[in-house]
């Protein structure tokens, strides 16, 4: 029965992934990441994703503080942050987050503060969703590995 867990978990995993793809939260770039994970780099995906989270939160904080500043006018700086965010999100496969960033950047290019604020809200929201889902994904993956690792002694 335990073995079934592994299968069940794998099924859950796949279902979740399918859902995420369908929703546009992730795209095939994520699959590329998964393919890069192998024996030589067994934790590659979670490593990269964790770095991504770390950096993104920094970026979001920066963006937020920039926009909160009343006298904010340095759209170039914001553009730089956004560029990085776009780059990393697309490298991860975080499609929706990336799209919001692109819209954000467009607003920033036009020096549209209100538009930027709205985009920031949306970005934070999307980022939260992504983060939650990816955590879920990792959890299932971990459980699956555990379950798959269980070996039952051969029954005589």
């Amino acid at each position, binding site marked *: 029965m335990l073995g079934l867990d592994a299968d069940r978990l794998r099924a859950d995993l796949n279902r979740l992934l399918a859902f995420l793809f369908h929703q546009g939260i992730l795209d095939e770039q994520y699959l590329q990441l998964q393919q890069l994970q192998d024996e030589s*780099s067994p934790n590659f995906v979670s*490593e990269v994703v964790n*770095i*991504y989270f770390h950096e993104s939160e920094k970026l979001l904080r920066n963006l937020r503080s920039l926009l909160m500043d009343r006298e904010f006018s340095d759209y170039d700086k914001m553009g730089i942050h956004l*560029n990085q965010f*776009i*780059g990393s999100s*697309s*490298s*991860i496969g975080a499609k929706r987050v990336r799209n919001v960033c692109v819209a954000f950047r467009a607003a920033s290019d036009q020096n549209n503060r209100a538009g930027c604020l709205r985009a920031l809200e949306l970005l934070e929201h999307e980022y939260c969703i992504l983060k939650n889902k990816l955590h879920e994904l990792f959890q299932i993956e971990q459980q699956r590995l555990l379950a798959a690792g269980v070996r039952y002694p051969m029954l005589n």
Partner: protein
Amino acid sequence: MRVERVIRDENDSFPVGMRVLAVDDDPTCLLLLETLLTKCKYNVTTTSQAITALKMLRENKNKFDLVISDVHMPDMDGFKLLELVGLEMDLPVIMLSANGDTKLVMKGITHGACDYLLKPVRIEELQNIWQHVIRRKKFDRKDRNGSGSQDKPYIDSSEAAGFGNVDQNGKFNKKRKDQNEDEDEERDENGHDNEDLSTQKKPRVVWSVELHRKFVAAVNQLGIEKAVPKKILELMNVENLTRENVASHLQALFLNLTDLVTKFRLYLKRISCVANQQANMVAALGSVDSSHLRMGTMNGLGNFHTLAGPDQIHNAAFTSFQHGGVLRRLNTPAGVGISGLPSSGLVQLSPVQNLGNTSTNQSKLQSFVIPGNHNANILQGMPMSLEFDQLQNNRAASHVGQFPSVDNTTVLPVSSISGSLIDAGCSNSPLLGVTSNSLLLEGSSQLPTLHASNLRDSVSGFPNRSTLSDFTSIAPASNELHGSKADIQNQASPISCNAGKIISSAPQDWNAPKKDAPYQSNVPSCSINSLRAVNGDMAQLGQCLNQNNPIFNRNVGFDFVDPLSIKCSEGENLAMEPSVIEKEGYLMVQPSRQGSYIPDNEGENFAMEPSVIEKEGYLIVQPRRQGSYIPGNLGSLEGLASAMAKPCYSPVFLAQTSSNFCSKGLSDVVQ
């Protein structure tokens, strides 16, 4: 000495094991890139800082085969890194960015990137990047063989310097500029291959003076906008020259220009404040003392780090000179243009009055004698220095054409300019486009404004911001300048990039062209890089120049492209009166038109007549006339440059560019 690229054992298994350096400030992407590259079986080194990357590359030029770099990085602009790598190490560079804007991509390509990838990077794309390495090698090889090239198809030769074979034909591998001791001036038409370069020699096209001249003529004929490599090639009608050769030559020019422009801009910023007080500088010129000539600072100049010591200085000087194309105000009525000096052409050399004297002391800037005729392009002489540098593989060989003959009238009062300006060292124009006959300091061996060494120095040194700072202090009083720059003296002290300063100072003078030494003082101090303060040793200069002649000629070509123009997008019309226009940090010294118009070059050749406006003692070299290609090859280049940049012309940049190009050469030559 031959520096050869180590033939790696993976020769056979190439591209497996290809050594890639990946640079990206975003850790997510960097890790991903590293993993992807490892998956492709390359040998990957990563860093998140461009500065570290440069350091690594500089430590050992043969350590990497390819560089992949992000465009937006906090410590250094990706394009800048791209340029530097291309210039110094001649490695293929691939740009990476999340932003696929066409303009950016274009920028990347024009700066020399072999490819521009968009994030997210896919493994399929990375699996093919090794082609760039091969292509470059082959290309170089083909390039080198002007005639009868036999490609030695070996993979690692690429930048490897088959330098050892550089020989009298003056082939140089730009990477091996340092080794190119014998860089010889014989510039043959096609830079044919040197037969002796048998082993490991990388065929490269040697852009001889003739070749470059043809190139420039072709470009001129086509017009900047239409000057595409293919057409240029057709017009040039040279055997064994490929479109790629032409394209890379073109590219090299631009690279230099942009680099120069950057430097110049920096310089301008520094001196902008000083500029206003120039009025007295000129006057002070008389009292120039060697100290003013401080060319040495150039060392830091950019890419020419390879130049050591005096050479560097030279380069620096040159560079500064270049930048200052504007700076030089040649006193001669002729448009002594540093060939290359872009439209601004005004090179203000300190008042000529004491040309004779300069030799006496402190390396006053022997203002390069600007040929009397307007069309003389001082720059022409300049290229020579550039040539030496060979910064970029021969690309730099901007053959600066002959300097328009400078009559004595145009002699620049170099002396007053604390020699900084034109410490071309070699009076013979070759250096800074100073044709052998041109740039004659009154009677003395002409002070090639751009001393080859200067050029070299300037070139190399130019980017050295610090040097600029030296100049920033150029006080209006020329005297002060001179004093401050004291270092200039000795011939070897190229005017450090004071070009910036000079330029700034120049403006002042421009307005009061006359006799005001003030300007000059600025200028001189600014050490137009190439200008090596001729320590009154004109003769020496002459010699130097002579040697460098061939080289210079080679390079000068495009040195005088106006880097400013390239950068200046706003290109306002420089035709304003001799004012220093500061554009985007560039100081464009526009010579007042004393009849010479420095037009806004949008794509046209610098229509300025390369006249040398004679202002009391200043020799203002103005960019050559429209359509008239600066004798030598600068003309078109200038036009090119100007076209590129929009009408900002900065002779300085050209100089620098050329210096960049020939910085290597210069050092060698000057040595």
